[in-house]
């Protein structure tokens, strides 16, 4: 039982350490790939579509497309 408890604690500890290590080196694509000359918009929250399979609804192109950028976009650079 002690070995099991120690194993679970060790797994959680290593998982938390991995979380800190990975998140410190991660950025969203719209942050990582934007440059001073190109703005990459945030794609929104649901990239897989309303049916979660990546396929569009039959009536989707008549209404709002999924994956449309939401929120306030960054201001374009004036030069």
């Amino acid at each position, binding site marked *: 039982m002690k*070995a099991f408890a120690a*194993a679970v604690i060790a*797994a959680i500890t290593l998982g938390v350490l991995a979380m800190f290590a990975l998140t410190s080196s991660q950025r969203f694509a719209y942050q990582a790939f934007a*440059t001073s000359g*190109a703005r990459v918009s945030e794609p929104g929250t649901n990239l897989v579509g309303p049916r979660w399979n990546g396929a569009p609804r039959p009536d989707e192109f008549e209404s709002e497309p999924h994956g449309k950028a939401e929120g306030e976009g960054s201001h374009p650079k004036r030069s």
Partner: protein
Amino acid sequence: MRRATTLLSTLLVAVTLGVAAPAFAQNPIQADGVNPMGARPTADSVNEEFLFKQDSKIPGRISIPDQKAAILIQPQGREYQAFREGWLPWIGALVILGMIAALGAFFLFRGRIMMEHSQESGKKILRFNAFERFTHWMTASCFIILSLSGLNYIFGKRLLMPLIGPDAFGALAQWAKYSHVYLAWPFMLGVAFMFVLWIKDNIPNKIDWAWIKAGGGFIGKGHPHAARFNAGQKGVFWMVAGFGAAMSVTGLMMIFPFALTDINGMQVMQVVHSVIGIVFIAGILAHIYIGSLGMEGAYDAMGSGKVDLAWARAHHDLWVEQEQARTASGPQLKGHPAPAE
């Protein structure tokens, strides 16, 4: 005079063009894309078919640093989606439910394999030390979370979302994804530890072949000879080592997407990861069954670490003899009444 000549020439050209141009203009009867000479003006232009002869995908040109965004058409993506959304759920359901059904049928046919009592019953022998059990349980507990969160990728939207709704499923799926990515690290460490700890006892030999020919003691009465691990346990070891390595490599490719592969490679990694994952889960279900419900006395090996000597003698007779010989000749356990304890 010269100016008059120039003016006259210009006028002549203008008149000539004015008369001739309508003759070269598109004939309203002519079909689009076919000129009056009978040739198709776009016949020699670059098209998809021509581009696919040069490469398996069609790239464009972009100005942001994310060069993978320049891929315009990648037809393999459709095959990947057909597998991911069409074949994979069926493969997963058949393999995992098939294994559960097979184990259920085996239990009904064979029942629980009971311990055979002898005069050695009641004495204990140490089968796995504390570090071995720690390694096993760290890997096992991570594997259970990885399995459930991995199956959620395939079945969650089909089975869970209709029950709990998209908002709750979205939150659950996000936490499942976090647990999958972060608990993969202690799992990989556990697999590496297990490999180092137990490889010396898992090298296949002739005894394993005899064990397999005798049905491993599952069929009929009596137990074939076995050392510390029998052929079945060696199979589980090599499955965990092989599948663990494959899942680690393909998983790392997905944790660090596009680091070493392109979009096609990412799709291949997902296919390999998901198929091996399903077979891995099915194999471990059998391992869990035989280590708990399927065989009396087997769980103690990883529970307390000590097993009944009569059980050990029946299932791992060569190992018991080896341990008793080592204990009898070694000074480390002097004074202990139970051998190898």
